[in-house]
């Protein structure tokens, strides 16, 4: 009796085990999605799938038949709001399309200005897709960027974009991915941002940062100001700052340490006072001849600090004018103020009195002397 029951129980998984499989070589792995705004609520969606035909023949020594590994590379078509491109293009794929190993999602500037609400909310709800995918705004058409065949590299385009963004976030760019973006998007008193990329000729390049208010693109910060942005945004190292001295000469400083502390006064007042004090340690990477020496290190660091302070305060003023808060100053003020008055913050933000105290320490000037 016991044995009979046991065998019956054993039959349950064998008979009912019909979980849909997605065997590696029988799915099309969508690695990147691109969205272009066509106007009138219509969107051109593009998906890219890596093709592994390179090197496939090393395995097919058994017979004369060609390996069947080559897959279609990209699909695109018009859709009403870009929701779930994988499902839309299913009819065009030779295998099942799966979005589980998504790497990048990119949007063109027009769509970013129109608003990313739909694309973000359905991605946020999809359990199949990792939240650590890279997102970016493209200056130009995403379809063109994703489907172009004239790149120098043979790396699948979605990975190319992801590697480029990740590599840059280790240096001058702040950490960005879908998770960070949604955090700022849903959080109060803060605004999201994502990198701005562009295809220039046969390669891609980072153009700076695209800043959003809610889900709409407002303005961008150029690549040259990224150090200033990141030092105010988070502590980091391995960034570099190209400082233009009044004499027209350049000094490039690579920081080994940068920390920022915010001090808030009068958080509920009409114009709250926010002071950012920064400690930056760095070494001189490059310099025009005769600008640095061990003796002149202190004067150099003074000059660099002044330059950073000037640029930082200018940038924050600009952000205040546009009413975007990617640096999370609003959140900083909230955390330092008892009974924070959040309702009026949006009006008070442009009037916030922001200033910087920067201390730069040059710990090495190279073998110049």
């Amino acid at each position, binding site marked *: 009796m016991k044995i009979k029951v046991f065998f019956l129980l054993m039959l349950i*998984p*064998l008979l009912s*085990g019909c*979980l849909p*499989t*997605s*065997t*590696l*070589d029988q*799915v099309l*792995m969508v690695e990147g999605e691109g969205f272009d705004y066509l106007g009138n609520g219509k969107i051109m969606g593009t998906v890219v799938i*890596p093709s*592994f035909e*390179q*090197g*496939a023949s*090393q*395995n*097919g*020594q*058994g*017979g004369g038949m060609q*390996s*069947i*590994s080559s897959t279609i590379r990209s699909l695109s078509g018009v859709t009403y709001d870009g929701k779930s491109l994988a499902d839309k293009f299913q009819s065009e794929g030779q295998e099942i399309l*799966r979005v*589980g*190993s998504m*790497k990048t999602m990119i949007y063109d500037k027009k769509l970013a200005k129109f608003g990313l609400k739909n694309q973000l909310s359905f991605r946020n709800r999809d359990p*199949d897709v*990792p939240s650590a995918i890279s997102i970016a705004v493209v200056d130009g058409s995403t379809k063109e960027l994703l489907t172009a065949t004239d790149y120098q590299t043979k790396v699948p385009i979605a*990975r190319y974009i992801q590697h480029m963004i990740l590599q840059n976030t280790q240096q001058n760019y702040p950490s960005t991915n879908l998770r960070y973006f949604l955090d700022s998007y849903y959080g109060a008193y803060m605004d999201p941002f994502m990198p701005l990329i562009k295809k220039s000729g046969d390669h891609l390049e980072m153009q700076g940062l695209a800043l959003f208010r809610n889900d709409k693109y407002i303005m961008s910060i150029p690549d040259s100001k990224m150090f200033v942005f990141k030092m105010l945004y988070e502590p980091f190292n391995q960034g570099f700052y190209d400082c233009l001295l009044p004499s027209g000469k350049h000094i490039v400083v690579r920081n080994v340490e940068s920390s920022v502390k915010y001090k808030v006064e009068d958080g509920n007042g009409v114009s709250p006072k926010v002071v950012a004090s920064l400690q930056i340690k760095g070494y001189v990477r490059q310099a025009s001849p005769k600008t640095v020496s061990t003796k002149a290190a202190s004067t150099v660091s003074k000059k660099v600090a002044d330059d950073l302070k000037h640029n930082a305060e200018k940038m924050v003023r600009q952000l205040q004018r546009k009413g975007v808060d990617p640096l999370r100053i609003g959140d900083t003020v909230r955390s330092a103020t008892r009974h924070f008055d959040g309702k009026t913050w949006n009006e008070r933000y442009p009037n916030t009195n922001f200033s910087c105290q920067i201390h730069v320490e040059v710990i090495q000037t190279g073998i110049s002397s």
Partner: protein
Amino acid sequence: MFFRKRKIKKENPIQAESVSDLWLRLENVPDFIHFKHKGEHFHCWVSFIQTLADVEYLHRDVFPYLYSDKVHSLADVQQQIPIERMIRTKDMAVIQAKLFEGYTIIQEYEREADCLIIPSVKIKGRQIEKSEIETSIIGPREAFVESADANINLVRKRIPIPQFKFDELHIGKISKTRVCVLYIDGIANKDNINTVKQRIRDLEVVSMIDATMLALMISDNNNSIFPQYIDTERPDRVAGALYEGKISVIIEGSPNALILPASIIEFFAAFDDYFLVWPIATAYRLLRLFAIGFSSVASSIYVAILTYHYQLIPDNLIPSLFTSRTAVPYAPFVEVLVMEFMIELLREAGARLPTKVGQTIGIVGGIVIGTASVQAGVVSNFLLIIIALSALSAFITPNYRMATTIRFIRFPFILSAQLLGLLGISLCFLIFVSHLIKLTSIGRPYIEPIYPTRVRDLKDTFIRLPLNYQNERPLFLRPGDSKRFNSHRAHQKAEVKKSELDN
């Protein structure tokens, strides 16, 4: 039929009823010697089995006394012959048993049960040789042989105290095999000894060929795939276990000794761990544990990930996995089964064949089947690496029994991976864990330092701390004397050392 069965049973019981009955039965046995000695003063009947008894010894040391003029009766014989452990008895059971052990029987009258039994056992067996199954690079090399006396000798040499004891039991309805239960009185737990002895005594068997057979019969759970006793061919390991407070069982005719109770971790500890410096020994133990984990789940994780969880594959691995998979016509599950089947075939063929042919099998398996199957597109070369590595990892287990268990465990894991992916693997793992938690070895918890958690016992499990920290015997044995030595004194002496350079 029923009637006939009963008749046979009645006519031919194993035990002879009387001496004359015994002689009658042995009439047609060619190596049975039974003759009447007619001396000047004394007549007697001498009987022994030629192939069991040491005939040269009888001629040299026993028979001359029968001719002596001082001998007139059986009592005189017993007095004159200077041999210890002679028995004078009328008990038929003893007479028959001793005759078949190689003893010589002397009677005054052929039909009378009054017998003098003289030990004349011919000791013939293998020389003590190097251990071949549980080899170690450093440390003692002796291995047990098929003679229980020789084996006990090997252990006793290492434990020169009167407290080292062994109890003899005879099991097997026909074979009456001698079983010795070895322990150190005062260190071993009395309950453990009694449990083992009682289980051996309660066995209903006809014969007992090997100690491993006994191990299967007296284990707590006969259906478990996990071995609940360690069988070893190394006397040093047995001595070490006895000092720890364990019990060992040695069987006549078996070159294996059992060590019990056992916990699962001991199956993964090689005995040479104790001969190495502790950081290195610890590293090797951890390596072995990793290998076992890898070996049991590697192929099932391959199945699960390739069938269900393509998201988990690292980016840089996807192209090589993809290209090697596309040539394969089967699902990963079938692919893995084919490969596992091949490896099992190779292993079984290698184990059954003589050593020299076995090497050829290795070459055939490794080169021909491996390379050819990848080239023919039957399996992917990525899987070949995984399977080969996991086979290697299974062989790293020092205990052969555990190695077979580890290899067997893979198959339920692979099946559950195919059914439910990683969830299936974790469910299967849960089933095994709950089974292990319930498992006992002569009533002692089988996965002891893990559950129930005994931090004190952990110092000789996954890791092996220095020997002067091992001052307590394992807790799960409940030893009679839990302290090995005074730890305070052990550390005191260690601290006295001073650099000679300072003087």
